[in-house]
């Protein structure tokens, strides 16, 4: 199938996913208890005050009218203004996104840097001390909740040894510890996969061919097996990256980073309808886009799948 058709189809699918996700969220947030007008009004306001605010937000209209209105504006790439802060949703998201993006990028890089070499060595030297160490690390990474890891890292490297800042945002130094605690949990997954994938590749027939050709063990393992073993690792890392973009809330909270996750969390707590809707569309879109790119990357890495 020509690449362009593949891309168009995938893109259409992506749009469908986003539309479905945003429609679900649109109705869900209006059905669940909680009302942005009541949040704005606060404790001492009267019912009339709340009604006035509701009218101003437009949440007094029938839900179908609201939905059609929203769809129309989304079609024009306008996510509206936040109900609570009044700022344009798009602007808010775009302001936050680079932070989460940096966090996720560094996180996945650190995860891969830790996991891939360790996973490869574990696979090559199975049941050796390195392997056990790798297993231990990955199990700990999976078992320790990230907020816990984050606090421990802060206590160690921002309080006991003062090399990283305790809070705040700005330069890269603010991202090292959060990325590390984000990356460690992911490293666990990637390490297990790398090891399994490498073990599997090493058991394949072409490895016998490579050895029968008289290649050195290093060439066999690191030239022949490694490349093939990394194909699934890289695709899974890509998907993990997608998760990190939306799943960094807890890390952002612990490290006081003004990322997308916290924006979204506040949005949900305050029932900021427009913000949640915009945020979900954005995150679903980015996530699907990453999946899509990962698919393309996969076909590039794996000549067998290459479309054409």
């Amino acid at each position, binding site marked *: 199938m020509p690449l362009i058709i593949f891309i168009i189809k995938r893109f259409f699918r992506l749009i469908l996913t986003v539309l479905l996700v945003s429609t679900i969220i649109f109705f869900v947030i209006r059905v669940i208890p909680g009302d942005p007008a009541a*949040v*704005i009004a*606060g404790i*001492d*306001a009267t019912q009339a005050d709340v009604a006035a605010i509701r*009218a101003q937000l437009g949440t007094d209209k029938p839900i179908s009218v609201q939905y059609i209105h929203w769809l129309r504006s989304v079609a024009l790439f306008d996510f509206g203004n936040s109900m609570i802060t009044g700022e344009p949703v798009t602007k808010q998201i775009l302001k936050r996104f680079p932070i989460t993006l940096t966090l996720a990028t560094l996180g996945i890089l650190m995860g891969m840097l830790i996991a891939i070499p360790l996973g490869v060595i574990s696979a090559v030297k199975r049941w050796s001390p390195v392997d056990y160490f790798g297993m231990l690390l990955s199990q700990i990474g999976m078992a320790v909740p990230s907020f816990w890891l984050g606090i421990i890292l802060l206590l160690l490297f921002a309080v006991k040894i003062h090399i990283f800042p305790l809070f705040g945002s700005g330069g*890269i*130094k603010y991202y090292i510890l959060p990325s590390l605690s984000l990356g460690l949990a992911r490293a666990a997954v990637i390490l297990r996969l790398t090891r399994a994938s490498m073990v599997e590749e090493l058991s394949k027939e072409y490895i016998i061919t490579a050895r029968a050709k008289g290649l050195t063990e290093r060439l066999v393992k690191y030239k022949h097996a490694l490349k093939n073993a990394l194909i699934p690792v890289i695709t899974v890392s890509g998907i993990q990256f997608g998760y990190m973009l939306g799943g960094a809330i807890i890390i952002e909270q612990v490290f006081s980073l003004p990322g997308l996750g916290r924006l979204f969390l*506040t949005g949900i707590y*305050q029932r900021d309808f427009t913000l949640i809707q915009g945020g979900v569309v954005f995150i679903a879109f980015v996530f699907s886009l990453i999946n899509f790119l990962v698919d393309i990357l996969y076909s590039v890495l794996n000549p067998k799948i290459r479309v054409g």
Partner: protein
Amino acid sequence: MKRILQQIIIVVLILLLPAGVLLAKGQKEERALQFALPGNPDTLDPQKTSGTLTFQVLKSIYDTLVEPDQTGKIVPALAEKWSVSTDSLTWKFTLRKGVVFHNGDKLTSRDVKATFNRIRSKKTASPKAKEFGAIKEIDTPDDYTVVFKLKEPSAPFLAALASGWGAILPESLIDSGHNFASEPVGTGPYSLSKWVRDSKIVLKKNPNYWMKGLPAIDTVVLDIIPERSVVVQGIISGQIDIAYRVDKDDLPTLKANPDVKIEKSLSSLILVMAMNSSRPPLNDLRVRQAINYAIDKQKVLDIAYGGGKVIGTFLDYSNAYYKDFTNLYPYDPEKARELIKEAGVTKDTVLQLVLPQNYELHVKAGVMYQEMLTKVGLNVKIKLVDWSTWISEVYRQSKFDLTVIGHTGKLDPDGTLAGYGGMKRYVKWNNPECLSLINKARVTTGFEARKKLYDRALEIMAKQVPFMYLGTNYVYNAIRKDVTGFRMTPKLDTLDFRWTEFK
């Protein structure tokens, strides 16, 4: 394999290098005050919110015509002086001369008029509009005189002017539809320099501030840190100068550090467990009384809220109108049990205790209440909800049996008491006598006259117990030893950095 390891090390080093460079670059700027704020203000428009955090921050950016001093007494601010007509319907304010807004505009009476017209306008949809509902019209006889004409006498009027929502905005920007939410412009001691949501708010000194020589510190940074343990570590390590309202459980840790001092003060909160008096079995006075007997108030105050003064009615402990009724319902679980038996409440009746999950202290208290109520034979189930659910379901629609909350103190008792005794309030407690007393007190002037009315109303509330009155808690501010002069405005609990300085 060795080579691979080497490569890994190199890559790691390359990755960490920029971090190292940044770390090495020592910043030698003038010291800014670092203040830990637990959350983000939603907006910085004083007329479009009811958020406590917003008003706390806005105190530094805006001024009001009058303001409370450290004792809670209302004193001149942007208004040099004021006078009231004998019928209490005409209020005349004389503005201070030479006050300028951050944008350079001079403060005149037109600004004041525009400000209050904006908040009263339907278009603004301000949740605080009703605070100024008594105003009939505003006159500006000259640039420095403002005259408010009221529909009826209003005792709380001055308090409204002194509150955060009484902040004065420049007329020119109001007319142009300026976005005050993210770019506030006021006459306050500081102007907003930078606001990174969920990260920090940077305030720069206003060099033209009308109080000569104030503020003392050039830059105040409000660091938004949601994680409590980070705040504690921050103040210990000196990365934070002031942390307000630290948890009492953290005090031992903080006190162990010689560079930190703890300032303890009584808040103006009215901590209660509200009861829905319209729902059985809580519509039975005996059950409500039992609940009041069942709670060891001092213990809950100490453990959940960090200590404080027990109250016996619906007003904060230090309020001038406060009257002590604590002897009415002492801690007496035996009596509670009897009353419950008498009222015929069994374990089959489930009482739902709704807690706002974002308020850790209320959740803590709720957990203790549940345990204590269980001990006297009530079946209480906890339900956590987020704030928006609490406010729209519990507060607006009274869908609850029991809930825990703290009512912020008000400059005027009417702000706290208005409406109670009528069914419109969330506790659904019906007592026409109490309601009429409160309504009468609003239009009555003179402290003694009002106090008499309020005494009676508070007594009814204390006896009829639509709430389990807990108390007013202490708050603890942790401050680095070299920082002095940090104030919190009484009743309003806003942050006042004007006198704050480094020693």
